[in-house]
């Protein structure tokens, strides 16, 4: 655990001293003034979104007893992105709908994205649970299949909504869909995200013993007095709110919620109490690390969107995981 904390501190410090000018030149300097504020903003955004996704992925993997479960794999991230796309269409057309002044005010405060992302992620989790339910329990294969289908359907609806936007807004939303790390994050979204993360972290810690038991089998958990339904519902809502916060802040970033819990297991083992601290730290390492990596990659069009790097890393890890697990599953 101390090693993880040391890596996080090292990465954060490296990101703070790493700069790049508009002509693509890299520099290592001690920033001051506005540069320090902007780099701190980027570090804070990446760290908060990474921690939220790491914890959300861990809770989903434990509660569903499925190592492939993660917000992006199960379509929860796509659901949140659909919510934000719908909110964007609403705010662009705010002048022509009822309650326009309220919608415009929410849009200005960044609240419309936050509400859209939260509602989208919670609805997708509810739909997912409903679709994967078999004989009172959740079938792991149905769950992953339902997640893939939901992700595709939500993605198609989000694209249809984007198509309805004027060309200049359409390009904006397309870029947002690639994931980003804001250097000047919306304070309201950041405060809500930090509050959601703290609440879910405390709630998960209080129930860490129940989580250990729940990760064995449903019958075993019931026989030991764990109310598995209540636990699952509470932490599912928590995972949905965490994903919504991360998407509202950084856009739909794939695979951080998948990779972080696996990295955490390698480092601290399988006990839930340790994992609840380690998975968010690993999420921070993946997302802030990806932000650092994109600064180091030279392109003539500016920096790569961070979502491209996390998807590449996570995709390779996912394939490797499936390759290793195939024999065990069969």
């Amino acid at each position: 655990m101390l090693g993880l904390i040391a890596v996080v501190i090292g990465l954060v410090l490296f990101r703070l001293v790493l700069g790049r000018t508009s002509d693509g030149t890299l520099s290592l300097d001690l920033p001051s003034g506005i540069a320090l504020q902007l780099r701190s903003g980027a570090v804070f955004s990446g760290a908060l979104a990474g921690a939220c996704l790491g914890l959300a992925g861990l809770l989903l993997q434990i509660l569903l007893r499925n190592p492939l479960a993660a917000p992006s794999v199960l379509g929860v991230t796509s659901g949140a992105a659909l919510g934000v796309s719908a909110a964007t269409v609403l705010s662009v057309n705010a002048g022509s709908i009822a309650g326009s002044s309220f919608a415009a005010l929410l849009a200005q405060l960044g609240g419309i994205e936050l509400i859209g992302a939260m509602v989208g992620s919670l609805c997708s989790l509810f739909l997912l649970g409903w679709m994967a339910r078999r004989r009172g329990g959740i079938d792991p294969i149905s769950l992953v299949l339902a997640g893939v289908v939901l992700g595709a359907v939500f993605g198609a609806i989000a694209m249809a909504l984007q198509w309805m936007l004027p060309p200049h807004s359409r390009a904006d939303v397309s870029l947002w869909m690639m994931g980003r790390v804001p250097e000047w994050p919306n304070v309201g979204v950041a405060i809500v995200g930090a509050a959601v993360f703290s609440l879910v972290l405390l709630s998960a810690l209080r129930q860490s013993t129940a989580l250990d038991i729940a990760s064995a089998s449903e019958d075993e958990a019931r026989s030991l007095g764990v109310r598995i339904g209540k636990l699952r519902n509470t932490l599912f809502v928590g995972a949905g709110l965490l994903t919504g916060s991360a998407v509202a802040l950084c856009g739909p970033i794939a695979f951080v919620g998948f990779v972080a819990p696996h990295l955490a297991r390698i480092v601290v083992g399988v006990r839930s109490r340790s994992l609840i601290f380690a998975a968010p730290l690993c999420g921070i390492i993946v997302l802030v690390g990806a932000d650092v990596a994109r600064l180091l990659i030279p392109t003539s069009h500016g920096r790569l969107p961070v979502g491209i790097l996390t998807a590449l890393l996570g995709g390779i890890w996912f394939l490797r995981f499936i390759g290793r697990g195939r024999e065990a599953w069969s």
Partner: protein
Amino acid sequence: MVARTPWCVTDATVPVVGTLLDVDVEALVLTDPTVVLVQPPVQGNPPHLADLSAKRGWNLVEIRINSFDDIGRAVGAVADALEPVSTGPLHIRADECMERLTASCAPIESASQMGGVALLSSVRDNGALGFGEGSYLAQAVERMGCHVAPLSGPFTQLSLEEICALEVSTLIICDANPDERVVQGPLSKFWIVLAPHESLLMPSPSLVDGLELMRRSLVDVVQLMNARREATP
């Protein structure tokens, strides 16, 4: 005009026949055009479009709108394609367009003392798209006598830190909905010119209107800068 792409906003009642990468051939044939204007993509025109044009006797005219000079050439090419006589009303109209376009980019007095300009679009909390050397907008602003900030390419995604590090005094923001928090936050040290994005980001009949508006705003900035300079002891 009997057909258009979805990006053409001149007349919404004209039917859309797809985009150049995804031509709706059936719809295009139904509109029965005499001239087809195309802006070829990097990979070239779709071969079936050339075949179809040859079979049906359409005049396939290729125009490119990468640089500022390309816009002038495109206006001339459209007039040539639609009117065989070079002294006809369309050519006269094209000449008038070119005169207005040239006038809209006339040099601004004392513009060189502005200390550099950066052209941006899509200003958000993680940066903006910058227009550098090679884009028609940067070339238009350079014709006005301003020094445009050098970027690594004609269209470069810049972070807010990279924008703040640019050695310019003024930001021209062509954006329908720039993030106000960012404009009033880290970018507040610059002079800001909000330019009409609808007419500037896509070459259209209203481009000249957009350039004229932008030029007027830049003249105001130059005058304000001079007034501040004179007031400073």
